[in-house]
């Protein structure tokens, strides 16, 4: 039994940390009092990260990625979380609008035309599954794509779509055959500017960003070459990567919690109240002890699950456990970190206040906490 992280991963993580501190930290500092960052700045950061070899590092080398395995990917995401770089969290390795493995299911032409420019940080996309009437129950989507004379006509509405206002193209999931259930859902690559495709309302989030929005399709016609892979495979393609998506959230939450605890402990040792550092009061000690213990638990789940996933094992149950535990744990730890900082924690000068808001989304995105528990229970009941 060897729990040591292999040296090459440690080395890569060190390089990554140095890159974040030297190249990205100045951007984060510059915008720390802003709710949102101009889109060009996101792209600038992506290009920087591309140049340093981190953007798209989790995608295969054949398509221009770095070929990093899941374990390494998770380690870097954890480090990214720990850095408390918030504005650019999806611009460093990939994420909303960036290189996504789901496009690996595309044809050679699609990979050339869509995936590679994403990895080169030249283009941006959005993933459009959620609808006003279909969130956790994604199979209930109503957007229809009807085949006519060898082309598809798409009608429907998507919402809460991350990156909607900026995407050069959207990966849109629509029902092509209502009689086939999940096997009747197809993914389409729809380019910006295609007649009948428009960005609707922009949603402002709790953190004040304005990068989520609606996509509206009205008799939007696309050719067969815009189908991702094969007709009827859309939902299966989307689900194939869900395990990885959950590990991504778990890793970033585990890292963020660690970053918040690091700040809180340093603060508690310096901040004096009633004549001594507050770290010497048990009320504070219990908070940091609980936090450190919970982070340790999350990390243990995360690493063992990521390791199993890297070996190609089925981790559907474990990744749901990692996600639900880490996202809820991060909520608690960051809340305590804010409390330890007192008034200072409420100020935007420190990243804790923003982090407190941002981490709330982790219990919703990539499957709500409730869906994770459902998944865990379903697998568990099957096992007995």
């Amino acid at each position, binding site marked *: 039994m060897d729990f040591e992280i292999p*040296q*090459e991963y440690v*080395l*890569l993580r*060190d*390089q990554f940390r*140095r890159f974040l501190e030297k190249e990205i930290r100045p951007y984060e500092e510059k915008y720390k009092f802003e709710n949102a960052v101009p889109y060009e700045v996101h792209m600038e950061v992506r290009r920087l990260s591309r140049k340093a*070899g981190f953007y798209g590092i989790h995608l295969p080398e054949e398509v221009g990625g*770095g*070929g990093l395995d899941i374990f390494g990917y998770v380690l870097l995401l954890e480090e990214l979380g720990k850095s408390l770089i918030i504005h650019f969290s999806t611009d460093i390795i990939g994420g909303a609008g960036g290189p996504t493995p789901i496009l690996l299911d595309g044809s050679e032409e699609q990979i050339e035309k869509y995936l590679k420019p994403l990895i080169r940080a030249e283009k941006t996309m959005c993933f459009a599954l959620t609808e006003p009437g279909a969130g956790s129950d994604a199979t209930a989507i109503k957007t229809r794509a009807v085949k006519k004379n060898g082309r598809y006509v798409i009608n429907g509405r998507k919402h809460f779509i991350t990156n909607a206002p900026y995407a050069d193209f959207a990966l849109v999931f629509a029902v092509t055959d209502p009689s086939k259930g999940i096997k009747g859902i197809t993914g389409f690559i729809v380019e910006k500017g295609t007649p009948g495709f428009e960005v609707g309302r922009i949603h402002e989030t709790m953190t004040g960003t304005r990068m989520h929005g609606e996509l509206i399709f009205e008799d939007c016609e696309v050719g067969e070459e815009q189908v991702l892979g094969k007709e009827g495979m859309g939902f299966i393609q989307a689900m194939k990567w869900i395990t990885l998506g959950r590990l991504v959230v778990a890793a970033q939450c585990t890292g963020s919690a660690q970053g918040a605890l690091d700040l809180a402990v340093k603060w508690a040792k310096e901040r004096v109240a009633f004549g001594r550092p507050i770290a010497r009061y048990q009320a504070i000690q219990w908070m940091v002890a609980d936090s450190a213990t919970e982070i340790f638990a999350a990390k243990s789940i995360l690493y063992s699950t990521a390791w199993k996933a890297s070996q190609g094992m089925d981790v559907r149950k474990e990744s749901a456990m990692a996600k639900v535990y880490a996202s809820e744990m991060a909520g608690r730890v960051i809340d305590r970190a804010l409390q330890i900082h007192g008034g200072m924690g409420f100020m935007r000068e420190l990243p804790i206040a923003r982090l407190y808001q941002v981490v709330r989304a982790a219990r919703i995105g990539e499957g709500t906490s409730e869906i994770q528990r459902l998944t865990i229970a379903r697998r568990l009941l099957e096992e007995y």
Partner: protein
Amino acid sequence: MKILVTVKRVPDPDMKVRVNAEGTGIVEDNMKFVINPFDEIAVEEGLRIKEKKGEGEVVIVAIGPSVVQEQIRAALAMGADRGIHVDVDSYPDPLNTAKLLKAVAEKEAPNIVIMGKQAVDDDYGQAGQMLAAMLGWAQATFAYKVEIADDNSKATVTREVDGGLETIEIDLPAVVTADLRLNEPRYASLPGIMKAKTKPMDVFKPADLGVELSPVLELVRMEEPPPRKGGIIVETVDELLDKLRNEAKVI
């Protein structure tokens, strides 16, 4: 052009170092170790020289227990060609370090040896100078800029000295020690890290190099600096002068 670069394993300068209870060293549990930052600059310079020449070999040498192979691999990941590990149980003092490096230099016959100006753990800053003296080679310490002549016979080195810069020309082979502003080390890439795993690394014991270690320094005791006391605000200039003269005894 053969470039020999030395790297030392040191505690991560960003981490808090604690002295062990016996006062014989630092607590190594949970400690992270890295390439001495000045040595990392030396590695980068070696790589840049090779890249500029369009030919050559960058050989990394490190002295210490087997864990120092991690730092050799890190330098190989940056792009160096091969490694030499001089296997000793503990880190020798500067004189014995220089003796071992002399043996490696004689074996390898490089055109230049590049070292960090000092290691950030013990801060001796002596090994480079001692090595040059033992080899009878020229030395250029605290390098700010290094240029190698086309025929590899000479180097022009700009040095950081008190109050400014000094440019000297030295015959090669020579020993150059890197200062902070010589360059900004690159990031090791993922392909670089993967390639480093299969790059050759030779391991020698001091005896293999014909060196017998004879320590000249003994660590008597290590202790942490006393915690800084809070300052005071003086009322008058006279009081300040009095304190500087009679309490601090600095004027």
